[in-house]
């Protein structure tokens, strides 16, 4: 894989060069969510016994930041390259579809983790959050950002215009994230929405990730791992296939 390290490095350098927008801005957004929601709801909501609402909120917000930024990284990089035409610089060299996939998805994972870690670090000023199973946290962060990184590649390849990408983000990614239990436990929802939530893979990502912190979750962590890992595998295979056939890249 001679070209992979460079493509990976280029993808990292790309978001690092605009880190104000790609790292600090989403950290600030998450902090604002935390300040406002915890201020309004701290006194009224307790999801798990012995866990304050603010503490409950932290893993959800960190994971939301991980997911949204992983998606933003691969999708915006690809759509910008396609629209400006510089995608040609990646298509002319002897890069395989596997190298292409790995570079984009790993860069998305790195950005997701950096932002997630930043959000988590900032929240430590406000509330102490236990970290019961760190490996579980890492596993869900990796798989979650991998899934969103792959979705970002798919969206970036599929979209021909920025507004198509924005539609993908606003009508698929954001609803699935907000309805995944970032701000609440699904047990507090009416029956219909509880059932519906079980069809949302984002719910398993957040629930499993949160389990790593508190050792408590809405569904069994093993089920969450199975769902999230299957989603990652299926989306990765689909993305690799799209890249292999050159869908909307090699006409």
């Amino acid at each position, binding site marked *: 894989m*001679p070209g992979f390290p460079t*493509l990976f490095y*280029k993808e990292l350098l790309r978001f690092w060069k605009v880190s104000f927008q790609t790292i600090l801005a989403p950290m600030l957004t998450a902090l604002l969510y935390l300040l406002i929601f915890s201020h309004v709801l701290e006194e009224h909501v307790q999801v798990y016994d012995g866990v304050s609402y603010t503490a409950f909120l932290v893993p959800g917000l960190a994971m939301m930041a991980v997911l949204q930024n992983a998606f933003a990284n691969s999708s915006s990089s690809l759509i910008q390259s396609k629209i400006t035409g510089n995608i*040609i*610089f990646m298509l002319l060299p002897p890069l395989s579809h596997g190298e292409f996939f790995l570079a984009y998805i790993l860069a998305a994972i790195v950005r997701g983790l950096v932002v997630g870690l930043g959000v988590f670090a900032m929240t430590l000023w406000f509330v102490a959050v236990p970290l019961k199973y760190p490996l579980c946290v890492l596993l869900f962060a990796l798989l979650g950002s991998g899934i969103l990184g792959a979705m970002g590649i798919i969206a970036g390849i599929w979209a021909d215009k920025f507004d198509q990408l924005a539609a993908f983000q606003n009508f698929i990614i954001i609803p699935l994230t907000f309805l995944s239990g970032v701000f609440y436990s699904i047990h507090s929802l009416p029956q219909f929405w509880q059932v519906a939530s079980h069809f949302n893979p984002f719910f398993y990502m957040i629930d499993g990730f949160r389990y790593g912190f508190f050792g408590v979750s809405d569904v069994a962590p093993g089920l969450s791992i199975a769902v999230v890992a299957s989603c990652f595998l299926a989306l990765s295979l689909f993305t690799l296939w799209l890249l292999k056939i050159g869908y909307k890249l*090699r*006409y």
Partner: protein
Amino acid sequence: MTPAIQIREVHKSFGAVQALRNVSLEIAQGEFFALLGPNGAGKTTLINILAGLSRADHGKLAVMGFDVTSQYREARRALGVVPQELVFDPFFTVRETLTIQSGYFGVKNNRGWIDEVIHHLDLADKADTNMRALSGGMKRRVLVAQALMHKPPVIVLDEPTAGVDVELRQALWQFIRKLNADGHTIVLTTHYLEEAEALCGRIAMLKQGKIVALDTTKNLLESFSARRVKLRLSPDYLPDDLQSMLTQRSETSYTLALNDYSELEKVMSRLREAGIAAQEIELLQPDLEEVFMKIMSKH
């Protein structure tokens, strides 16, 4: 010797539009080759298929003997393409762009060659400038530099001088000529036919996706381009028996077509007999533009 480029019976359609129709072509190593044709003739489509940016519906293509689909890694390593569009990555400086492009081809520690190319293309004082801040001409130079980063034996330039000022055009050709002299095969598309005529040893002309002419530049000029003489006469009169040779009449001159230059003597003696003096004689050299127009109107 393995041909630098081999193209066999290539077809490509975009919907109902047939972009390439049974194109076959072979370019030897070390050639300076021109691919000419009007807009939409299929030149860029052919280059894109060769470079793997597009895929042929049918046919085989190879670069330095490597099939562009089944051996795409080797084929792409052997090929450097300067694209027609002025594209760049706004996140990086010139040097970063070139380092990254080297890395894509697996070339590490390329600083020496990057410096050399930067020097030859007169980019030294812009090396650490962001791509966004460069003029169009400078961006074009960087595109050429990018195509050379992995030292490909075959270099394809798709209209590299479109919208480029005279000074850069000449500097660019000087550099490309040097690369050709060093053994690189050069394939060029251009709308400036005088460039193709001056630089290229062989020419293919495409029209509506088909090759309509393929020969050495010399043969094309000789076989398709008429020899002509332009005369200013006193008195301003052309004898009747020379009228059949007249191709153009302006207010002050007559242009006559000659089968070969020995016919000029016949014309001059006929003028002398008729008591007409030639005040000005200009031999018109055959040019590629004329050949191009003739071939395009024929097919």
